[in-house]
Structure formats: structure tokens, C-alpha cells
């Protein structure tokens, strides 16, 4: 009942004001290369996204995920046998996009293609390192399309 009252209060509140259009700039900022960092905290792996072509709405973007460093020999061994799953996700709306394709080039490089952002807005690229069905570690990179 409390939620119900709160929800209807929230509904009434915006009726009290005219909408004010506050547009975001159409010029997307160019991210510095350091902004493409991906860190797998559990395994202590530090990687970087290297775009083959820049991320754009409904263009088939591609990138390489390159591992630049790791904290231990154990992490390296786990990474060598690991597979990578890459999920595109729009957190505000709670939906994703079409499945990406991931190819392991070597133990420290993954090629990711079919990166297809279907609409403008906030997106996440979610990386899941797996050994079979076991999830070893996860990392998320956020970007604005």
C-alpha cells in the first residue's frame, strides 16, 4: 500500500510542471584510449578494447580485446583455457542486442565482431570469462551511443 501511494504521488508530481527539453549534445565526446580499459577483478586481468571501427548505432562494429597484464601465473593458466562471452546490454531498458561473435586469436587476444547497438542510449559491453559452464570472472565496459 505504501508503494502504491508513493507511485501515485510520483505520478501526480510531474503534472505540476511544463516539460523542459534539456537536449544532450549531438557531438559525442571522443574517449581517450585509457577509457577502453577492462578489468577482471577476481582473476586480476587487465585488458583493453581496441576498436577496429568505432562503435555506432546499427553498424556492425568490431573490436579486439587485448590482455595487457595479469597479477599471477595462475591467472595466465586460467585465461589460456578460458572462453569469452560478450553480451551487449542496455541497462536502463533491460534488454540486449543480437549475439556477438567471439574468436580467440591467442591466449591474450580475442576478436569480437557482430557488435550491433540497435538504438541510441546507454550501453554496456559485458565480458564473461568461462571455463566450460563455470564462470571465472566478469567485467563490464559502459559506453554511450
Amino acid at each position, binding site marked *: 500500500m505504501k*508503494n*502504491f501511494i508513493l*507511485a*501515485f504521488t*510520483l*505520478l*501526480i508530481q*510531474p*503534472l505540476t*510542471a*511544463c*516539460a*523542459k*527539453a*534539456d*537536449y*544532450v549534445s*549531438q557531438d559525442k565526446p571522443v574517449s581517450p584510449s585509457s577509457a577502453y580499459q577492462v578489468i577482471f577483478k577476481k582473476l586480476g586481468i587487465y585488458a583493453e578494447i581496441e576498436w577496429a571501427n568505432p562503435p555506432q*548505432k*546499427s553498424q556492425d562494429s568490431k573490436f579486439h580485446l587485448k590482455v595487457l597484464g595479469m597479477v599471477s601465473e595462475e591467472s595466465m593458466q586460467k585465461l589460456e583455457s578460458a572462453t569469452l562471452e560478450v*553480451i551487449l*546490454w542496455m*541497462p*536502463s*531498458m*533491460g*534488454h*540486449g*542486442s*543480437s549475439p556477438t561473435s567471439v574468436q580467440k586469436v591467442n591466449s591474450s587476444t580475442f576478436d569480437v565482431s557482430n557488435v*550491433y547497438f*540497435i*538504438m*541510441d*542510449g*546507454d550501453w*554496456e559491453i*559485458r565480458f564473461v570469462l568461462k571455463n566450460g559452464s563455470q564462470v571465472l570472472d566478469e567485467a563490464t565496459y559502459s559506453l554511450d551511443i
Partner: protein
Amino acid sequence: MFLFIIGLFLSHNADAASCCSGGTSTTAIITNNDQAQFTASMMFSSVHAQARTDGKWQKLDGDKTREIFTMEGSALLGDRTQISLSAPFQKNSYESSTQNANGSGVGDVKMSFAYEAVTDWDYSKYRPKIYVYSQAQLPTGKSIYETQELEAVDSTGTGLLGLGVGAVAVKTIKKWDYNANIFTQKLFDKSFGAIRIEPGNIYQTSVGVGYNYTAWRFGINNLAYLQDSGKTSGMVDSKISIERYVSSTLLVSYLYEEDLSVTASYSDQTLIGKPVNTQLSRAVFLSLQKHWPR
């Protein structure tokens, strides 16, 4: 004569909605002395901008349009009870300088049961008629969670089962009529592939007023919509933001014959309120309604 037109627009003031699947609407309720009514309607909407979660607006880089054709029937079961069925068909298009995409399909079918809780059989000067109703939404539309198309043009509904309850009050005083509607709907969890969706509840309320002149009615209506935050689990554990907007509608109706009326309206989601996490649309709505008197 005036009141039967109210029943026409109560059902169609939320359709110009939201992100990708058209929001929600409530089915028509007979508020006059008819035995049954049938409505065929067409809505054309265009997305003006995307309201983001931070409240900022973002222009799309192309034109996104939506057409919804809806057939809707309502019939009395008894003196105070009635049922309704609404079946929409939706077509979405997106076109930019470099890309275009189209999608279409059946939307979410809705059924409702209404009970006239407060009657106006003694023609009270001030007491309104109040109807309470329940509504079931069937998951017949294609959900945004299933889409892989550009701008989600293949999404035609929520694709979720929903159960809602609401109340409508209507009152005519001389040449003016007034209406208010509150509605809340529970959407049920559903898995789409490896992702489980736990959607937030929907709350909406609307108020409207109309002026009647001979066979014409001129009305305005404001509808506020809120979908509470939800979450996803499974392949992706994530929180879904709230969605909020206010839709303002201007409408004109004409009673063509005693049993036939036409309505045209314009709805705009960019005028009032602080929209969040939704696509702001402007829509034109045309409908034809046939009545069967008691």
C-alpha cells in the same frame, strides 16, 4: 448523448507511449446506456526524442514512426457488469539517411471486466458514476527483450502477462463532462532465453474534461504513466530503470448518427512533466465507434 463519447477516448489516451513497445492502455468501458459498442481505431505516432534515465533528451538520428490499428468491443453482461476485448496490430518503421527497418505484428491483447460500483440512476447533480474494473493483458505482442532489430522495430508489445485493476469516474454537468481514471497493473516475470525479466509494476492516472456543443464534443486529457524499476537475472543481472511520462491529448468527437461517432485526437508527450527513460511521441488518432442501445 454526451456521455457515450467519453467512453470512447478513455481507452486510447496512453497508446502514443513509450520506449519500444507502445506502453499500455486500458480497454474501453461503456459509460452510457448502450448495450454494446465496437471501435475501430488507427493511431499514427512519431518519436520526437528519447528521454534518457538522467532526464536529458536525445534526438534520434532518423525518423521512427508507429501505426497501431485496434479493434475493440465492449458488451454489457447485466445492468452493472460488462466485458471488453481489445486487439491491436502494430507496424513500426525507422528511417535515417543510411538505414531503414520495418517490423509489424499483433500487439498485446487485453480483456477486461467492469462493474458499475456507483450508479447515477437518480440523476444526481454531483455524484459521478464510478466503474471499477480488472484487466488481463495477454503476452501476444513481441517483447523488446526478444528484439534484435534496429530501433527494436519488431517489438509490438510487452510480451508479458499482466493483471491490472482500476477505477473510472465520469460526470456530466450541463454542457461539461469530467472524467478520471486510475489504474495499476502487475506484470509477471518471464524468461526470454537465458535472461529472466522481473518487470516493475505499472501505475497510471488520467484526468479529462470535455465541452459538448450540439453533436460535437471538444476535450482535453492528461495521462501520467509510471512503470516502477525492474530487474533482470540469469545471463545478465541488471536493474531496469523506471519509465515515466505524461501524455496530453486534445480531441474532438462528432456524433454522426445516434449510433455512430467519429473521433480525432492529437497526443503529445513533450509538453508536460519530467519524462524519464522513454521515447517521447506525438500522435494522431482516428476512430470510428458503433453503438447498440439497450
